[in-house]
């Protein structure tokens, strides 16, 4: 493992830019720390953190000047890999007939090259889950795969998780295990502010070599490990995953769903901020005289009526049925479908729900009042 100081981080930014990468990283915009295009280390949220609760997010000051002493921002990296709106193809009608051509915004030549800086372990897991959905198997999403293949991931381990975090119980954090090019752990103590860096790929190794990073001392590595050990305890929430899919599948008529029917706004915020939610709709647009048309893919949500509209009507007409669909997909049927949970414990759906609905509380309520599996053990899933 190597050690990087702040000036090494600046050098890393320069190297990435030289190589043609757009750096996407955390920065303070208005009332939140968001992941956006940044140019320099100065734009990182030094000494700024956030306090997150159900339906509440506030910026706060830190006194240690940490660059990554904050938690997750309002939206995930999903919007870069899987943009909210994407043209799939365009068509033109001429006197000779109809021609279909590739989208103007999706040609391989003009795809962005992103360097994601500050990807948290849970987020990296979420990217892994979306890879499974979009980039593997019989039907590969060409746009996702093309952008995904070109990214560099500089992950940052979480030493200070927040109140809505529960990655430890979903086993996705607070320390990242794989999927990164570089993983950093920020270590701050009197008189020193450095990052213990671990490479996770040849690209990462090469980056460290180009930075001429010095090896981290045993003491520095130990300090990073201590911080990560304590991080799990700082997590504000947890989900008991013991036979969770079975529990939810067995409780589709649980009274808690009726209770949710009263509280849930079906606004769709949870799905839009969720780093693994992948649902989309397709829209065909035309110009007025019908000579040009285009097909667009747009983020959709299982909380909208139209999402489950088929011949004859909407399959999930009640809000209860939509919330149940979403939650049981995340915590139960996702396992049947993809072999992992669809929830990584990032807690965004809790923070950004306008009425503070908390998926961990709902899971707990269902377990508590269930005749099945009401006693949990700390066993594996």
């Amino acid at each position, binding site marked *: 493992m190597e050690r990087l100081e702040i000036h090494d981080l600046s050098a890393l930014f320069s190297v990435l830019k030289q190589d043609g990468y757009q750096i996407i990283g955390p920065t303070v915009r208005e009332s939140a720390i968001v992941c956006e295009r940044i140019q320099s280390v100065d734009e990182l949220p030094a000494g700024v953190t956030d306090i997150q609760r159900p339906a509440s997010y506030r910026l706060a000051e830190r006194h240690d000047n940490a660059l990554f002493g904050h938690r997750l921002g309002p939206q995930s990296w999903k919007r870069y890999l899987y943009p909210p709106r994407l043209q799939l193809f365009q068509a033109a009608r001429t006197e000779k007939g109809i021609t279909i051509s590739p989208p103007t915004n999706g040609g391989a030549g003009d795809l962005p090259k992103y360097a994601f800086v500050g990807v948290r372990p849970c987020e990296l897991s979420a990217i892994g889950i979306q890879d499974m959905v979009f980039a593997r198997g019989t039907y590969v999403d060409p746009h996702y795969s093309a952008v995904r293949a070109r990214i560099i991931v500089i992950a940052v381990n979480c030493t200070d998780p927040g109140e809505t975090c529960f990655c430890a119980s979903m086993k996705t954090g607070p320390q990242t295990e794989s999927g990164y090019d570089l993983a950093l752990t920020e270590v701050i103590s009197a008189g020193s502010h450095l990052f213990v860096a671990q490479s996770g790929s040849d690209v990462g190794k090469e980056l460290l070599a180009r930075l001429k990073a010095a090896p981290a001392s045993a003491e520095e590595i130990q300090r990073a490990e201590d911080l990560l050990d304590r991080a799990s305890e700082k997590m504000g929430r947890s989900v008991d995953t013991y036979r969770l899919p079975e529990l939810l599948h067995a409780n589709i008529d649980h009274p808690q769903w009726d209770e949710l029917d009263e509280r849930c706004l079906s606004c769709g915020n949870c799905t839009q901020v969720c780093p693994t939610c992948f649902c989309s709709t397709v829209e065909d647009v035309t110009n007025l005289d019908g000579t040009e048309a285009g097909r667009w893919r747009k983020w959709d949500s299982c909380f*909208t009526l139209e999402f489950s509209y088929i011949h004859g009507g909407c399959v999930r007409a009640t809000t209860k049925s939509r919330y149940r669909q979403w939650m049981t997909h995340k915590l139960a049927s996702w396992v049947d479908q993809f072999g992992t949970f669809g929830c990584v414990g990032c807690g965004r759906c809790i923070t950004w729900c306008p009425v503070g609905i908390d998926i961990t509380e709902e899971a707990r309520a269902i377990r508590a009042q269930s005749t099945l599996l009401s006693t949990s053990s700390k066993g594996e899933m």
Partner: protein
Amino acid sequence: MAQKRKPKVAVWKFASCDGCQLSLLDCEDELLAIVEAIQIAYFPEATRAVVRGPYDLSLVEGSITTPHDAERIHQVRRSSKFLVTIGACATAGGIQALRNFKNVHEFVAGVYATPSYIETLAKSTAIADHIFVDFQLRGCPINKHQLLEVISAYLNGRKPNIPTYSVCMECKQKGLVCGLVTHGPPCLGPVTQAGCGALCPSYHRGCFGCFGPKETPNPSSLSEWWLKNGMKRDDLVRLYRSFNAYADPFRKESEAHEK
């Protein structure tokens, strides 16, 4: 392609401020394409020239507030093949529907020197309360891109892409930071239909609900959350009583918190 007869389009006005019809004239870059594709047959706001009906497409702005208009809207329906209501007045009664919560005769007596000259209905109501409407386009005012989309879909015989989900969906897709969660001003986004492109949240204002209630709205849950967090009932009533005050879900919610 064979030259088709251009569809005849009429724009009708009832009780309204004209802002929605103006959205059509605001399509400056697209106006030439519009008149290329349709024949403006009746549009007093734009031209005195009138082509007689029947009309292929009617855009109806405004609410029904007088006995005369309650008759006239039936004539409009009879002369229109496809009728689209545009804007909060036409789809929900508009801001003037605030009078529905009071006795209109008291206003008439208080405002006019000779109240007997004024012939008005007790309530301002949506067009769909009087006639069958083929499509409703929400907004105060309507969004020009949505209007173009409806016209374009009509001309091309396809379904218009007008989502009925929440403003939050647009807000998140636009990458805005939620003002509700970050303790900004009260925002009706979670109960309001999309279509404005999250206009107010883009300028750090809460959603005012111009596009009316979204599909399956749940205003009582949002109100309960606000009350729990210190909002006054009077303020709740005012929030829901604006341009779409008389749209059912908003009306019921404001009435639930009155006095």
